[in-house]
């Protein structure tokens, strides 16, 4: 399972893989979120933090601003718990980004 934090404009976005145990936990957490129906994805803020993209085999899941979307389906995550959970899985080489992303999630600010 590949995680990408959509953060940068010029440099390639940071990416890392979740180990199988964390990947299973992610699936469980995602499945437990209440469905929101086919709603539009939140608008991209442009510059700065724009959410996470998780690729799980042929599934592509976008997580941003309390919305978890996969294709036409969407789930709500008003506490942004999934974004926080993914942030705790940052590999050590990317730990310097933790505060930047955490601040953006907390404040609803863009990066």
């Amino acid at each position, binding site marked *: 399972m590949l995680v990408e934090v959509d*953060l940068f404009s*010029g440099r390639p976005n940071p990416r890392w893989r979740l180990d199988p145990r964390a990947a299973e936990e992610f699936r469980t957490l995602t499945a437990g979120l209440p469905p929101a129906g086919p709603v539009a994805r939140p608008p991209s803020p442009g510059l*700065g933090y724009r959410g996470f993209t998780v690729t799980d085999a042929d599934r592509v899941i976008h997580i941003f601003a309390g919305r978890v979307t996969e294709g036409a389906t969407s789930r709500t995550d008003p506490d942004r718990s999934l974004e926080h959970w993914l942030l705790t899985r940052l590999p050590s080489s990317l730990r310097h980004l933790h505060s930047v992303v955490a601040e953006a999630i907390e404040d609803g600010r863009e*990066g």
Partner: protein
Amino acid sequence: MTLLAGHCYQQGVPQQMRSIGMLRIEVSIFSGRPDPSWIITDGSTVRNLLSDVADAAEEVVGIPGAGYDGLGYREVVVSAVSDDEPWPESVPRSFALGTLGARNPGRSAELARRVVEGMTRHADTRLAEHEQTPLGDELRELLLGEMDAFAAEPPTWTRSPELPAHPLRTTAQEIAPSATCYIEFGAFNPGFWNTPAVQPNNNCYNYARNIRTDTFAQPGRAHGAQTGTMACPNVTQAALADGFVRRFQCLPDSEKPRWLTALVIWPGQDYHWYRFHSGNFWGHKPGRTQARDYDNSGNRITNPETCNRGGYRDFCGYFYAGRSVTIR
């Protein structure tokens, strides 16, 4: 002889021939039989034609099918044979010459005539259309005669010309106390970038230089000068190594199109570029997201120094990006 059929005409073409660029020509004239069509494989002919068209793109280029659409001669359509060959930024990959849809139909007709005059030199590459419309001197003379008559006495045509959105660019003066430079204002054309094949693989640096590399280009990488330090002096040096120059270091006409760009920095994290457009606003492409002309507040960007840039708080300055800027 290379035998080509239908739209599969690249099959069987030697790789080295593809790399020098090819053009497909189609004269829109017939109603029942296939229109005269041929492939120009000669590299110097391709380059010369595209160069001449690029120099006068705003005047001579029309949208295929948007000009006269009656019976008889209508236009000469020139198209790229593939999407991975060098192509002037001011010219669409498919355009019409000798069309009433051009701003200057007379100049457009001159270029179209030149293309058709060389028709029989390009008959070796066989197309399926040649079965019913073989290329030869007789056909060439027919086409030239019809084109001359069309240019001398254009048919009545009442629709307003549709002009291509992409090739429109204007040259403008940039005036500083110590210098007057000329730059080009390109049209805002997000549709080029916001496609599944282009959008994820090109970033703000590609957008600023206005060239799709599909490499998520990095300042300095093409010249061994990439930096990992996200600060104005470092990213600036990397861009200068690629051929960017600072604003008001005037570029000659040979560097057309000369884009005005701006660099900003998210200190320690990342960089970002903007490009100026006709209409006096700025476009940009944040990472893998869509090209756009608005900032993080949703406002159209008229000043990259003061627009909402999120964390990209350091403004590094303005730069020109001319034709010779190479990025990777």
